[in-house]
């Protein structure tokens, strides 16, 4: 019999929301792995070129944490996976905001119901709100084997760290539709270039997204020890997701890599949270001198790499471990195949929606709002004039019109977020 129970403070629940937001940019499903002393959320993208993991320390991150896996071995674990969207609809934004009337909570209790004598296996999340309201969500999950990416830190001779806030500023410069990011260091400057592979000539050239190069002083880094004149290429989308998440924690971001076509790792820590992202890289191989011979032989050095999968070596290992997929052989100057593969990862990037002005129903355009000057898009916010079908029958027999524009936009799913029934309908039938 397995037990997994933990309680979260509102701030911690909000952090889980941020983690899920970040992982959802890598994959549709998020995997959960619980051990005696920590819980981790992981995601692997469909092309297996990017792996993301956030581990939460049982003692520091949670108010209470208890995990007793079925497997009595010291490193036994409980693993499952579920849709990121399902979990995201439970861990909504602003869980820690006391002013948010609908979403603010007092605490969050999570337990896993996984007993053979019960008919249902569910991941149960209880949001205990103020005023005695409790929202209970029962989510289905899939019992899965979790794949972890291994990263050989000993071979990754290049590393740097930088404030996530600065990186956040840099990614703002990148063009919306660019796909790849080239990291290149030369003479006290590090250049981050976002670009898209060349499209055909002719009129198409003008449709090519902006290519943006951000040149940063090495002195802006907290530390920088990396080989110069080497192009390392990753996906802009992944980078953006990582930086945005790191920035929510106001932490600094560390990068470790060896040479193009080998994995690159970003990691950062914050108050009982350890996040790491292992990304496949492409790059210009010709410009790169061959990697210096690694001090330790490859085999043993793998096992010394940090990460959640390191301690499982001797266990009977429920979850199967797999190394990052082998890098594509560097074929020509520009390893176009691998670069394209990176670009292929599902594009679910969403532009932050413009903050609506305070009085969006004002008759006149606000003078300071630059976006308000854009042509009105009638498809986006429909202003419909319809019959009043609300329950307020004060108007009696008189047919009334009402501007239901704002009402019509209340998403249907929100109504389902109310208190889940805690009683059987049969029990309360007497009321009618």
């Amino acid at each position: 019999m397995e037990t997994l129970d933990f309680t979260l403070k509102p701030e911690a629940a909000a952090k889980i929301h941020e983690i899920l937001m970040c992982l959802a940019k890598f994959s549709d499903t998020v995997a959960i792995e619980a051990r005696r002393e920590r819980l981790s959320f992981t995601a692997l993208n469909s092309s297996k070129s990017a792996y993301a993991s956030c581990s939460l320390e049982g003692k520091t991150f949670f108010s209470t944490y208890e995990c007793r896996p079925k497997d009595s071995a010291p490193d036994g674990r409980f693993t499952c996976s579920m849709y990121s969207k399902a979990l995201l609809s439970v861990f909504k934004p602003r869980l820690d905001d006391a002013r948010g009337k609908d979403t603010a909570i007092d605490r969050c209790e999570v337990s896993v119901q996984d007993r053979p004598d019960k008919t249902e296996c569910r991941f149960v999340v209880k949001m205990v709100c103020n005023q005695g309201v409790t929202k209970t969500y029962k989510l289905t999950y899939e019992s899965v084997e979790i794949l972890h990416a291994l990263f050989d830190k000993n071979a990754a001779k290049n590393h740097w760290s930088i404030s996530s806030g600065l990186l956040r500023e840099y990614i703002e410069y990148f063009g919306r539709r660019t796909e790849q990011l080239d990291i290149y260091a030369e003479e006290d400057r590090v250049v981050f270039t976002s670009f898209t592979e060349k499209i055909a000539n002719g009129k198409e050239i003008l449709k090519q997204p902006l290519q943006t190069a951000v040149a940063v002083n090495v002195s802006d880094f907290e530390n920088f020890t990396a080989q110069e004149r080497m192009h390392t290429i990753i996906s802009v989308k992944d980078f953006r997701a990582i930086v945005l998440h790191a920035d929510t924690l106001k932490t600094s971001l560390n990068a470790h890599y060896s040479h193009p076509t080998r994995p690159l790792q970003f990691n950062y820590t914050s108050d009982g949270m350890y996040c790491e992202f292992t990304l496949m890289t492409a790059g210009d191989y010709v410009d790169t001198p061959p990697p210096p011979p690694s001090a330790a032989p490859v085999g043993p050095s793998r096992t010394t790499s940090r990460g959640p999968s390191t301690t499982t070596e001797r266990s009977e290992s429920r979850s199967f471990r797999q190394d990052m997929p082998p890098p594509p052989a560097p074929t020509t100057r520009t390893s176009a195949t691998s670069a394209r593969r990176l670009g292929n990862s599902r594009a679910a990037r969403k532009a932050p929606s413009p903050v609506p002005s305070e009085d969006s129903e004002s008759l006149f355009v606000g003078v300071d709002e630059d976006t308000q000057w854009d042509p009105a898009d009638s498809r986006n916010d429909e202003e419909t004039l319809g019959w009043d079908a609300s329950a307020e029958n004060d108007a009696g027999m008189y047919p009334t019109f009402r501007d239901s524009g704002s009402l019509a936009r209340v998403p249907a799913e929100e109504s389902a977020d109310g208190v889940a029934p805690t009683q059987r309908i049969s029990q309360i039938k007497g009321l009618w």
Partner: protein
Amino acid sequence: MRFKASIQNISIFTKLTASLNSLGNFAWVKLSDNQVCFTIIPEQGTQVWAVLSIDSIFEVYNIQSAANNVVNLEVPLASLTSALRSALQATSASIRLTKKDNIPLLALTIITTSSINPRGAISTTGSSQEEGAFGNGYEESAFGRERETIVTQEIPVKVLSADSVSGLHEPRCREPDVHIMLPPLAQIKGISDRFTKLASVGAKAGAGLTAANAPRSRLELSANMHGCLKLSIRTDAMNISSVWTGLTNPELDPSQVQGGEEGIAEHPSTRMKALGSADGRSDEGWATVRIDGRDWGKVMSVGRLGGRVIACFCHEHALILYVYLPNDNEGEDESVLTYYMSSYSA
């Protein structure tokens, strides 16, 4: 062929390209010794011919070409706008024409200093808000200058030959019946957008159509020579209109009108002065045009520039808007954007 300039007024340049972008994706940009022209000729809808003095956007300006120092480019406006937007906080920005892998591009170089203290991230965890704010401010003054970041935005462009643009001419139109200074465009846009929406909803509800294939709504714009402007929309179900009064009808300058004083006496607007009234209630004296509601919304996008706008009405024929860029220096060449809209028949 050479073009290099430092940008003096990034905000105006950005607003300009953003306004133009709402009407078309690509602009013909003509750079010459004394002016910069932006022209949008969409397949359908409003044409824009903008003529800007060099000083209104550029500072140091350098142009050279074999063809009388004129460079013609086709520029994707969305890319140019987002590149310029990223320069809004810059300490300096310059633009130049260059080539990479045989593709011509406009390279926008932005020098910016970060507002974030690069080492602040370590200490702020756990410290109170005020402490963090103080720390940032302190660091800023001490190390602000060292943290210069250089951002380069590369916009792919197409160089147009002189021949390929020689066939493009600014539209010509007969003398207008009414010319009038428009009220702030924020007011007009607010009302016209609302009218257009209501009309499209009304049409949809009536015929059970979706927004995409609903008949396009036609805004009716009228003005008289007594300071009145009327904006109305008419559908089967409704008829709404808004009237402004007390606007200015600028006097014609005899030196600008063909035939001088005599020309003015015979000018159509002089005849229109005899008709209509200043309260806008008279049915006479109106010059009217019908414009597609959505197209008008796109034109109104130019309101962000905040310039004076003079509308010239050719009754049942065309509407021409002259948008003057705000200009502090009297006597300098004025920069003007000209919008040509033809009227739909009733």
